């Protein structure tokens, strides 16, 4: 994928297919440690112990439309190609956690890209799922929790045009502020 935020979107589609209702996204951008870390944790149905090694095989998939499942193997390859690591931990009926780290200055490390676009797509496209998003750069962070937002909305759907606009502006503004002051 051209951007790491597209891998995030892709992995979360897996979480959603697993029936997750709460998904945590965490991005740590640490120039001092030369590390970029991405963690995605969901409360979906989890992966069977016997399948955990198989999920990284592009010819293994639990879906029925195709016989290929590329997402995790591509993400793992991206991390390892950049001197990083990739891990999957999962417990049946509790959830799955994916952690990918990258050497931040590695020449092959794709940019994080439009993570605001990724987050907005996920939040509005999946109104019955909650997300938390934490993005840290050099000690500052941007945090969003859709549970807080939905609590304030008291039933107004996230797909309401005014809410879509608010979400888009809030997320983009928050991330611009974060990257401008710490970029």
């Amino acid at each position: 994928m051209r951007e790491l935020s597209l891998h995030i979107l892709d992995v979360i589609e897996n979480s959603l297919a697993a029936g997750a209702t709460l998904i945590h996204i965490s991005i740590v951008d640490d120039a001092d440690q030369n590390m970029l870390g991405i963690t995605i944790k969901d409360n979906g149905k989890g992966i069977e112990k016997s399948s955990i090694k198989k999920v990284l095989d592009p010819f293994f998939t639990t879906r029925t439309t195709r016989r290929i499942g590329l997402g995790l193997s591509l993400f793992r390859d991206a991390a390892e190609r950049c001197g990083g690591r990739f891990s999957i931990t999962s417990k049946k009926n509790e959830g799955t956690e994916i952690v990918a780290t990258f050497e931040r200055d590695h020449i092959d490390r794709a940019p994080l890209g439009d993570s605001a676009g990724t987050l907005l797509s996920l939040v509005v496209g999946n109104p019955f799922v909650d997300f938390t998003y934490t993005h840290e750069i050099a000690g500052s962070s941007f945090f969003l929790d859709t549970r807080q937002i939905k609590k304030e909305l008291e039933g107004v759907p996230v797909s309401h045009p005014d809410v879509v606009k608010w979400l888009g502006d809030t997320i983009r503004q928050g991330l611009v502020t974060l990257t401008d002051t710490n970029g």
Partner: protein
Amino acid sequence: MAKLTIEDLKKIRENARKATSLRSGEVTVKITVHMGTCGIAAGARECMNALLEELAQTDRQDIRIMNAGCMGMCSSEPNVTVELEGQPPVIYQHMDGNKTRQVFKRHVLKGEVQTDFALARIKET
């Protein structure tokens, strides 16, 4: 630009309550952006973002935009399916941000199917 806060959500909530007529949140348009690995790699997120921007400029509360997985037609991704109430769903192929905006403005808002971009119309069985 003034900093957006949670306070703005309260205003949105109040306005939405006042504006809501007796409509009970029914959905008359369903737009599905296919987000399998194939779709994402081909640019589905840009289609989704274009839809969200267009939606934010309307006052339509009856339009639902959803994500779905791969439907198996990977070489025609990004695919966007538009289903207007009472009409057969139309699957659009090779979409990008601009084409998506056109489909939103003409098909979703005006009911004019954009046949140039269409892959198929799903027949009711």
